[in-house]
Every structure is written in structure tokens, then in C-alpha cells.
């Protein structure tokens, strides 16, 4: 247990009288691919926000790579190697695709490496990342001119530019066609093969099942299942939560 990369214990988050997350605990091993599923409003995004520091949890604690994350603002968590993509892509609208990559390169990646890259190195690294997500030919476009799938790729490439140990991909495939879903899935598998742990939050079951080594199910803010995907989806509680409503 001590070598877990991410250690979430008893995280609770309330909004007024509404409990969005209720005593959620989970662990993630280095290099693991975890699928996080649950119906709408089950607290998946709240959990992501509590992990990345956008929201402050009311109780419980999060430990990442040996560091306590509690009370740290999002950018400090990014410096430790925790990256996320947003459910609705949030590109830097006034910048070109290339300059979008600069922000994590100049901030998180620089802090993680302990030094700033030169202009030449930034350019090379950007090219490399854009090639990986096949956005090279759109490097000088502005985000408004990107298609939905390209926007998702930019979102992932920007998260990857931070050179993270853990990537949380929050519904990176929502609204995409089948071929595009496969595209993103392949991309995530490639990242994982480089040793990056990935938590995938997803509604598209086919993708989740293909991707995950382990599956966690949230229902109304409570974790109801955690285990091997094939077993989890046969679990009675899970079936009831998904089909019974």
C-alpha cells in the first residue's frame, strides 16, 4: 500500500446541505489505468476537482507521490506531477495552439525540471507533443478554429506538456464519433505505456471497458464498487444504479 501513487482517504465534500462526495477512499498504483464511472451527478467531477485542488474537500485527505495535497492550490499540485484535462475543453482562447502549450511548459514543466527551457527547446518539445496528438498542422491556428476532437487533443497535449505522473482525463471523449473515440483511446494508451498513471472519467462504456485495468463506481457521492472491470459491471449494486433507475 505504501507504494501507491495516489492515496485518497475519506474525502467528503458538501455544497450547502447537499453531500456531493461521501467518505470516498481509493488508491492508485504507479502506471495504473483506472476507470471512474457513475451516473450524472454522482460526484465524479467533484472528486476530480477535489483531487486537482479546484475545490477544497470538507473532510478526508489526499496523498500523492508521498506528498500531502491538502490545502495546496492547483498549481502546486501540478508541480508535483498531477495533471488534468477539463470536461469542457478550456483552451487559452487568445493564443495559438502552439502558445497554449507554452503555459505548462513555462510553468509546471519548468518547475518540475528545475530550470527554464530555451526558446528552441520549447519549440522542439511543442512540436513533439503536437505530433503525438497529430495537431502539428494546426499549430498556428486559434482554438476557435479547431474541431471538437482537436480541442480534446489540445486539452490532452496541454496536460501532457506538464510531464505529469498522473493524468486525470475528465470525459475526454464526450460528444465524439466512434472513430474519434478510438483515436483518443489510442492516445491515452500510448501515454500510459510511457509510465503515466491515468484516471479516466467516462460515460462511454465501451471505451472505459477497453481502457481500464480497474473500475471504480460512484453513485450519489458514495463509492459502491472498486475492482476488476468485468466483475464490477456484474455487481448487483452497479447494475441497479445504472439500469434500475
Amino acid at each position: 500500500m505504501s507504494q501507491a501513487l495516489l492515496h485518497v482517504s475519506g474525502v467528503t465534500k458538501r455544497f450547502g446541505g447537499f453531500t456531493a462526495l461521501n467518505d470516498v477512499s481509493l488508491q492508485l498504483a504507479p502506471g495504473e489505468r483506472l476507470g471512474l464511472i457513475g451516473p450524472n451527478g454522482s460526484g465524479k467531477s467533484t472528486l476530480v476537482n477535489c483531487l486537482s485542488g479546484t475545490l477544497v474537500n470538507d473532510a478526508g485527505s489526499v496523498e500523492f507521490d508521498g506528498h500531502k495535497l491538502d490545502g495546496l492550490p492547483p498549481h502546486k499540485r501540478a508541480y508535483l506531477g498531477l495533471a488534468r484535462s477539463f470536461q469542457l475543453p478550456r483552451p487559452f482562447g487568445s493564443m495559438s495552439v502552439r502558445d497554449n502549450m507554452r503555459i505548462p511548459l513555462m510553468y509546471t514543466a519548468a518547475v518540475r525540471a528545475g530550470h527554464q527551457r530555451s526558446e528552441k527547446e520549447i519549440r522542439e518539445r511543442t512540436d513533439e507533443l503536437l505530433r503525438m496528438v497529430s495537431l502539428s498542422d494546426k499549430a498556428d491556428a486559434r482554438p476557435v478554429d479547431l474541431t471538437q476532437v482537436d480541442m480534446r487533443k489540445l486539452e490532452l497535449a496541454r496536460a501532457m506538456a506538464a510531464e505529469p505522473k498522473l493524468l486525470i482525463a475528465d470525459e475526454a471523449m464526450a460528444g465524439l464519433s466512434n472513430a474519434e473515440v478510438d483515436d483518443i483511446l489510442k492516445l491515452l494508451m500510448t501515454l500510459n505505456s510511457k509510465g503515466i498513471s491515468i484516471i479516466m472519467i467516462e460515460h462511454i462504456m465501451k471505451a472505459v471497458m477497453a481502457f481500464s485495468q480497474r473500475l471504480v463506481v460512484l453513485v450519489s457521492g458514495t463509492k459502491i464498487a472498486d475492482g476488476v472491470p468485468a466483475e464490477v459491471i456484474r455487481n448487483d449494486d452497479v447494475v441497479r444504479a445504472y439500469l434500475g433507475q
Partner: protein
Amino acid sequence: MTSVAKASIEPRAKGDPVGNGVFAALTLAVAVLFYAVIAVIGSEYLYFAGYVVLQFVVLATAWNILGGYCGYVNFGSAAFFAMGAYTTICITTIASEYAKSAVGAAIGAVPPGVLVVLMVVLAGIISGLVGLGMGYLTLRLRGVFFSIATLALSVVLQTLVVNWDFVGGSRGAYVIRPNEFPLLPGGFIAYLFVLMLLLVVVALCVSRGIERSRLGFGFAAIRDDEMAAEAAGVPTLRLKLIATTISGALMGMAGAPFPYYIGYLQPQSAFGLEYAVNAIAMPMVGGTQSWIGPLVGAVLLGSFQQWATVTISSVLNLLIVGLLLIFFVIVAPNGITGFFRDLIYRRRRSGGGSGS
């Protein structure tokens, strides 16, 4: 061929074609040239009118560092400007009221030309610190709260000044402007003009330096999407505080020589709403995303107002500035320079179009 076209779309991506040192030298050269032209004409009116326009260039540039780069609207430009002006009043009053004390005598012994420069520095420090304090109290909340707080700041500082008899209260205070200045033809007003011209050079260098630096990219990320900026590792609170401090300091510096310029400073003129409006309208008209926008806006609107105040009424000219602000915000939200930048970008994309 395509790579050349693409590189020129985004000049920043290929590094900095003009270094900060070169830019400073160029700006200084232009400033000297500008001064030379005015000095050759030698009209006192040009010094007075030019001073006001230059002062607006500094204010607009300062506002834009926070407003345009970071997207945080400061409605209190007048307050920061007045803080600078009243720093000078405060110090000169100490010199005249306590002329017999050591401090008063020491200040009195400093020649006015040197004293103004010291005031500019002191005003920069004070208003920078106030900016930092305001930011510290309100910037952790949503951006609008910062804006609202700055809006109220003017009212409060004005209340303080009006109630503070030492700096003249509601009556106002005199500062004696010497007529002569030993080194320059044109007297002390020419010296003030040169001083403001140098402040313009400083403001433009700071503004452009930031825009092309890591700090500038961080600011732009905050403006575009603060949550995404945080997630990408931008320490947003710290950067916003840096921006409010620099912006506030520059505004205060612009205000410090003002009492010498006007001779008799009243609270209404130091806290005039036209400063707050112009500081916003000028960058909005010129374009907020680059250092050159506020310069263009301030030169256009500033010169227009200098002309309009004499030819039309001064109230009517303020109305025009207000209407221009509304017009640009609705119709050309990226200002004049932004409009052309977008035009070039669209042209390149549809013309060069091989990329997509």
C-alpha cells in the same frame, strides 16, 4: 514557404526579434526625436498639451498591464493617479509647514527638478503598495469584486483627502512651480514634459517586456481562463498581485508631477472621473492584448481631447470619449490594433490555407 508564413503569424513563437535592450534604445530614440521637434517649435502650449497626452499614455499603459493582460478591470485609476499627486503635495507641504525642522529644511534644500524625480519614485512605491493591498484583500474572490472595490476606492480616498486639512482639504493646495529650469530651453514645463516622456519610455518598456516574457504568458493565461491557467501551473494569485502592484505603481508615478503641472491641486481635479474613464477607454479603443494598443488609443483619444477641449466644450468631449468606449466594446472588442491583427490572421488562414 508555408513555414515562413506561419512563423510571421505568431511572432512570439519564433522568439523575440527585437530584444528588450534594443526596444528600450529605440523607444528612447523616438522620445528624443519627439522632444527635439517640440523644442524646435518651442511653443509653450505644446508642452502643456503634450504633457497631458503623455500622462495618459502612462496611465493607459499601466491600466492595461492589469486590465488588458490579466483581464482584471481597475476602475480606480483616478485614485492611484491622485495618490501620486498627493504624495507630492504631502512632501512639499512638509517642506513649507516645517521649514524650520530638520526634515522640512532638508526637503526644502532639494532643488525642485530633483525633488520631482524623488516624488515620482516615492509615489510609485506608495501606490504600488496600495495596489498590492487592494489585490491581497479582493483578488482571491471573483474578478468583479476587485473591480467593485477599486470603484469604491476613489470615493474613499477622496473622502480622506477632503477631510485632511494638512494637504489642503476640500480647498486644495498650492505647489510653486519654478518658471525657469537651468538645463532646458522652455523652462520648468519643458522639464516636466521631458520627465513625463521618460516615464512613457519606462512604462512602454515595462509593458512590452512583460508581454513577451514568461510573466506575460502567465497573465494572458489568467485572462483567457483562470482555472485552466492554475491547472497548467500558473500561480494565479501571485501573478495577479504582481500585476496590480506594477500597474498601481505606474499610475501613481504618472500622478506625482501633476501638482507641479497644475500649480493648484484640488481634490476634484486629482480624482477626476476623466482619468478613470480614459484609462479604460484608451486601451479599449487601441487594443488591450499588446503594449502598442494603449499607446495608439492614448495618442488618438488624448490628442483628440486636447483639440476638443479648446474647440468644443470639455463636457461634450467627455461624452464622446464615453460613447467611443461603449462603441468599441460592442463593435470592435479587440480595439484598433486587435482588429488589424485579426484581419491578418484571417487573411493568412484563408489565403495560405494549406494547413487546414
